[in-house]
Each structure stands twice: as structure tokens, then as C-alpha cells.
């Protein structure tokens, strides 16, 4: 009945959705922000630890939300670990395009491999009202890096 939905809900997404990685509070975080999706009640809190060069040494989150938003947050924390802040932001930009259009023509070079890991979420572009579920984590990351403290995704 829902076979064609396997594009959206790929096994990796269901898995990350059920068992999100890095799902914990970071006590000694250098950066943090809250993300809100008022329409659906999705909500997350994100913490970052920065390394000596300012790179993202650790990332963790807590929150509630649908499978898409939990999986996206989980995959994000895994992907940005070890990246510079600029790299992480660039990935966020690219991810937005991926989520909205389903492809990311410019996703090559240094970040190609990481974007590959996020590719399972690209199916969301066919579901306009769900795109914001996938992007909430990245909005929150941006807010944390820019010190905005709060992000909403509508």
C-alpha cells in the first residue's frame, strides 16, 4: 500500500528516526540553539563543542518530532562532526537545495562524500509540507553558529 513511500522513508531514515544518534545533552557546550517548527510542534535543542581551531568537535541534540526531523537531526550531528564552521554552513546551504529540489548539482568537491550520506533525505522534496521537517536541524545549526539562539522553520 505504501510501497512508493519507501523513497521518502528509506530504511536509514526509519532507523535514525527510531534510534537517533547523538541524542543527548552536551553539558559543556560552546554553542547551542533551539529550533521550533510551530506548525507541527517539532522542537529540538542543539549543542556544539568547538575544537582548538574552531572546528566542530562534537554535536548533540534532544527534542521531539517526526521521523524525518529526528533522522535529519541525527544525520546532521554525525555529518558535521570534525568539520569547520564554514564547511558546516556550506553543507546546510546545499542540504536546503537538496531537500527542496531533490538534487544538488553543486554537491561535489570536498563535501561530496558527506552530502552522499544525507542523500536519503532528498525524497522529501516531493512533499512540500514536509521539507521544513528535514531542514529544521540545519536551521538550528545555523542559529547556533551565528549565536541567534532560536530558529524557526515554517
Amino acid at each position, binding site marked *: *500500500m505504501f510501497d512508493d*513511500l519507501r523513497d*521518502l522513508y528509506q530504511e536509514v531514515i526509519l532507523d535514525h528516526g527510531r534510534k537517533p544518534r547523538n541524542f543527548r545533552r552536551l553539558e559543556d557546550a560552546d554553542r547551542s540553539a533551539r529550533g521550533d517548527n510551530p*506548525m*507541527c*510542534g*517539532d522542537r529540538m535543542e542543539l549543542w556544539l563543542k568547538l575544537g582548538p581551531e574552531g572546528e566542530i568537535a562534537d554535536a548533540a541534540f534532544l527534542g521531539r*518530532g517526526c521521523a524525518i526531523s529526528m533522522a535529519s537531526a541525527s544525520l546532521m550531528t554525525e555529518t558535521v562532526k570534525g568539520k569547520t564552521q564554514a564547511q558546516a554552513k556550506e553543507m546546510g546551504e546545499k542540504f536546503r537545495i537538496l531537500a527542496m529540489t531533490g538534487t544538488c548539482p553543486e554537491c561535489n568537491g570536498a563535501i561530496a562524500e558527506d552530502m552522499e550520506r544525507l542523500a536519503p533525505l532528498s525524497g522529501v522534496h516531493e512533499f512540500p509540507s514536509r521539507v521544513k*521537517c528535514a531542514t529544521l536541524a540545519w536551521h538550528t545549526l545555523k542559529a547556533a553558529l551565528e549565536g541567534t539562539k532560536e530558529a524557526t522553520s515554517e
Partner: protein
Amino acid sequence: MNVTLKPAPASLDVARIRRDFPILSQTVRGRPLVFLDSGASAQKPRAVIEAMVRCMETAYANVHRGAYHLSEVATESYEAARAAAARFLNAADPREIVFTRNSTEAINLVAHSWGRGVMKPGQAVLVSEMEHHANLVPWQMLRDDGRGIELRVCRVNDEGELDLEDLAVKLADGKVGLVAVTHMSNVLGTVTPVERIVALAHAHGAKVLLDGSQAAVHRRVDVQAIGCDFYCFTGHKLYGPTGIGVLWARLEHLERMPPFLGGGDMIASVTLERSEWAPPPAKFEAGTPPIVEAVGLHAAIDYVTAVGMPAIEAHERALVDHAMRRLSEVEGLTLLGRAQDRGGVFSFTLDNAHPHDLSTLLDRAGIAVRAGRHCAEPLHTRFGLEGGTCRASFGLYTTCEEIDVLAEALVKAREFFA
């Protein structure tokens, strides 16, 4: 007018009714549309669409302003819609009907004109935990306006019913000036005991506003029998157009209330120094009103009246019974609200599926349900459901088969997320 009294039809011919709604023959992603979001907004029968087209193609002009033929015709249609709304609610006088944009604006009008113009510092407004934001936020804004108006909240019990004891307690000190509660919850389906609420409130000197956005669609409403002071509903949920709502209020109240919006048509005279207000309802209808929408609403009222509110109610009771049975059989499903007196609105969660994921899945099966907190966040918080629920809500065109399709899809969805 045919005045022969016929026995109300006991049941309604759903197949025939469905043919009146062009959109229902649609398919969604290859499957027949199963539209179970009528509580958010209902679909429109051909009669409504055609009335609006006819108005725009043959009888349109601005109202109340012209002494020429088309304007007279348009004014008559507009005022006929007001009379129809008055009959629909059994109001004593068409002048008690104010056309607004929607229920939300109707309640804001009362919060401004009654709340800021008539209520006194030290008085309180009493709402309930199950209110739609439309009947909560305007009162919060009134409370925060620095006029010394308090806001009290009546509890909802675990069955999803209004806690009448709590209501009585909160009325006891006589400070409540206005009780503003829903006539039917858009989340729980609960129909509130409005006559008892009115009796309690009046006994303590409080006026009563009822939010009939949901109730008026499902039940025959008689504002005089209920005895309330304000009642509102919204056109688009009653199979009518968007852009129009109805506020009913006792004439004596409307006469006391200062106007809300200023502009054309609501004044008796204007000089640069001051303006005098027109009598109600004009006083509350500033500017060009929703003319075509009034004509559409009139057609919608005629439509449900012709089908018969008793028949609609009976049909819905059958749907509710069927849904209760079928949804209870779905493993892992939890229903929110189990009130005795209820209408065709069911909110639920499915154990391992988030409401948003669930509604995306159901959409693939052609089933339109709503996910979220349905503009009733405090109620979801009250039940510990910050993540929201899925809601299926029925219209007069809903069939038991559609409920079956939903129930089967829910079973499959549970497997999908297992």
C-alpha cells in the same frame, strides 16, 4: 415558501449528496479522494459555487450605496443572506446578525467591543482548556491590554468533557463578566452542555459567548432556546465560501457595544471633528462587505436546510458509531477524548508513528487527515501530546466506507513503521 410540515428525513442519501460536490469525484495520486478534514474546512456543493457565479455574472454591484438596479439587487441578496443566517440560528431579528470574515474575527470583535467597551476593570473572562486559539488568544490579548481584565480557564476532564464543577467554582465570586466557550471541540468532538453553561453563567451574572464554528455544522442551533448572548460560526466550515463568518448577538448588546472597525457604511454622520455610528448591524460592518460570499453562504444555508439538520445529525451519529468501532479495533491507536455527547471529529495517535509521518502516509492512500495540534495547543499540552495528533473529521458527504478505508490504512501504516 412551502409551509407543509413534513416529517424530517431519517437518513440521507449520501451517494446523491456526494454528486453535489464536484471535488469529491477527484483522485489523489491515483486513488479516490477520501476527504476527512472537513473540520478544518468543508468542501463546497455545486449550489454554493453556482450562486456565487450567478451573483458575479448577473447581479453584482456594491451594496447599500446605489439607487440603481444592480445595486438594489445586490443589496437585496446581501440582506436576504442576513435573514437566512438569522433563521438558521433562530435569531429573533436579522439585525442581530453581523457578517465578519470568519469566526476568528467574530470573536475578536466581541473581545474588542464588548471586552474593551463594556466590561469593567476587575472583571474576568472565563474560557476552557479545550478552546481553539481563536477563542483563547483574543482574550489573552484583552487580559494583557492593561485594562485589568482577568482570564480564567475552566478545566477539561480526562474524558475530554468540560468540568462543570470547576466552571461553577470559577464563577462563584461573581467577577466573571463573560464565559467564552466552544459549543463543540474541534479536537475532541465533545459537544458542550450549552444550556447548563448558560444557566450557570447567567446565575452568576456572566454573559455567554459560544464558539459554534464546529457545532453549527453538525446540529440544529437555536440561540433563543440556548439562551446565550453571543454565538458565532464560520462560512467555510458550513460548506460555504471562505471570507465570511457570522456573529450573532442580542440586539441590546450590539446597541451597547462601541464599533470595532471604522470606515464607510458604519456611520450615521461624519464630520472632521466626530462621527456618529449607524445602528447595528451596520455599525459593525465597516467597508465593503463580503457580498459574493454572503450570497454563497446563503446558498450553503439553504443547502443544509434542504438536506435537513436532523438528517445530517442522524447521519453523523451513524458515522460516529462506525468510527468508534472501527478505530477501536486498530491496534496501537489511542483516541483523544471519549465524551458522551460528541460529533464527528476524531483525534488520535498511533503508537510508533508520529502524526506527521502518519498523515503523509495516509495522503498516499488518498486520505486527507490533518496532523498537528489543530490550533488547540493548550489542550494537547493538557493531554501530554505536545507532538500533536492526527485528526479525521467528517462532513455530511462522509461515508462509512471512507472510515473503513482509513481504518485499514492505519493498520498498514502501523506495519510500515514497525
